[in-house]
């Protein structure tokens, strides 16, 4: 039997397909307004057309309030929004989020003009771009305290190199926002942060406009510390992005560009230690070689003095992780002392070879041991946290169950616990309700 679906299901499928399809949302479309009607509830409906085609459009009341002019018949406009399916009718339309009048003197022209002016002045010059500090102590952030940007930055930096975060709260859209951003950049410069992120989340060109203002561009240019811009979506470019020392595609990206990943840093340290162990092995090889040369003209007392000195220093190595190495070196020296009176170069040489292998194996064990113990701790922790989740009663409530308590707060688990007329409390995931028992019935 082939699958049969309802019309509603079909239209819902198409709606979902549209919402997932890139190029159908967060887009700009230009054309001419035609057949404009306004509903009593404040929504605007019209058709946007060009020479060859047309599309139905809806401008809802909330979006209308953000547009600073009255759309009229035959007006040439540019609109930002998304294509959506109206499931009831099976028709598609463009949902307008914001709208601009087309024509000379609009924001695009202003943008291009300012961009050229600042570029000619050298504000975008590569030679002025500063390198970000590799290990910043404090990251300054200029953005809204209530937006997602600061949260994204805090979350992303959790698993990265530890740096303090200092927010200079700023308005990032609307009147006075450019001044507010400038004040934030200047304040963070005074506070002596190591790097500054200037950003805001995605929005229409109107929303992002503060980042296209000349005073913001100049404040970024004049900042003593490097500035990373993170404005809007990856596809949005603002003047601030051109002036900044580095442009991040998103706020999350900005945090990732500034702070190194901790596990990557740990591997770097480990790789230095591996190189060190290899190098010290080759020093031991050289020693063995020298020993061979000494074969016939060995002065036991001199060798002994030198080794006694080394022993003292090795004994001072106090870190427990390297205790095994120290012990082996120590043993080696004791053995060597025993050779004092009865030195046989060929025997000593064999002995040396054994000791060298021992030291190398010890170094390897130390490194493996450290890594294993870290991994064990990590897996222990993750298993504890899973167990804890399992016994949390709140988890049961979030799955849609409720818990009922009787008078005295006792959880009701059997019909025997409850009498007609009792007041009980129903506990749900996000609150509780009082109820009276009207009747009861025992299950057969």
């Amino acid at each position, binding site marked *: 039997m082939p699958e049969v679906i309802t019309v509603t299901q079909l239209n819902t499928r198409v709606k979902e397909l549209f919402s997932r399809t890139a190029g159908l949302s967060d887009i700009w479309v230009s054309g001419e307004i035609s057949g404009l009607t306004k509903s009593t509830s404040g929504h605007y409906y019209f058709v946007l057309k060009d020479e060859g085609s047309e599309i139905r459009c809806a401008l809802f009341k909330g979006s209308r309030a953000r547009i600073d002019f009255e759309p009229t018949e035959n007006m040439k406009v540019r609109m930002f929004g998304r294509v959506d399916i109206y499931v009831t009718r099976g028709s598609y339309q463009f949902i307008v989020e914001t709208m601009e009048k087309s024509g000379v003197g609009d924001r695009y022209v202003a943008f291009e003009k300012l961009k050229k002016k600042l570029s000619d002045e050298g504000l975008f010059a590569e030679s002025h771009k500063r390198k970000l500090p590799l*290990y910043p102590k404090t990251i300054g952030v200029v953005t809204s305290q209530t937006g997602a940007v600061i949260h994204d930055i*805090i979350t992303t930096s959790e698993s990265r190199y530890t740096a*303090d*975060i200092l927010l200079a709260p700023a308005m990032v859209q609307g009147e006075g926002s450019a001044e507010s951003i400038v004040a934030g950049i200047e304040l963070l410069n005074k506070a002596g942060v190591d790097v500054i992120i200037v950003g805001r989340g995605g929005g229409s060109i109107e929303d992002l406009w503060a980042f296209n203002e000349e005073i913001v561009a100049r404040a970024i240019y004049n900042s003593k510390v490097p500035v990373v811009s993170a404005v809007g979506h990856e596809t949005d470019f603002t003047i601030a992005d051109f002036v900044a020392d580095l442009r991040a595609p998103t706020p999350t990206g900005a945090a990732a560009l500034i702070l190194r990943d901790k596990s990557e*840093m740990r591997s770097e340290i480990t790789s*230095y230690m591996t190189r060190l162990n290899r190098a010290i092995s080759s020093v031991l090889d050289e020693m063995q070689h020298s020993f061979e040369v000494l074969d016939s003209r060995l002065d036991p007392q001199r060798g002994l003095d030198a080794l006694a000195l080394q022993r003292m220093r090795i004994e001072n190595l106090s870190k427990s992780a390297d205790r095994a190495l120290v012990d082996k070196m120590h043993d080696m020296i004791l053995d060597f002392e025993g050779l004092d009176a009865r030195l046989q170069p060929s025997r000593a040489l064999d002995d040396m070879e054994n000791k060298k292998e021992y030291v190398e194996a010890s170094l390897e064990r130390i490194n493996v041991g450290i890594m294993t113990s870290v991994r064990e701790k990590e897996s222990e922790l993750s298993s504890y946290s899973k167990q804890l989740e399992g016994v949390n009663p709140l988890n049961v409530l979030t799955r849609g169950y409720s818990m009922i308590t009787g008078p005295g707060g006792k959880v009701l688990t059997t019909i025997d616990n409850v009498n007609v007329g009792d007041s009980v409390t129903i506990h749900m995931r996000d609150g509780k309700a009082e109820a009276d028992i009207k009747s009861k019935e025992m299950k057969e």
Partner: protein
Amino acid sequence: MSDYSEEVEKMSFEESIETLEGLVKELEAGGIDLDRSIEIYEKAVILRNHCREILDEGERRIKKIMESSGSIKVEDLEFD
């Protein structure tokens, strides 16, 4: 070496890792005696431990800064 531990304690992560890198390169270049080799190893272990401490124990502060009527105020950043 306890003097060196104290010296390293004051180093930033950046200084420590750079010093560690320098020591590794010196040892790799060869031509040094056992005396210096062991000294390098001792120092490297101290530096490695210090770097790991910074990575494991570093605690960050999250604050906000504001300026009103000429005075700068820094306080904990809290979200509603």
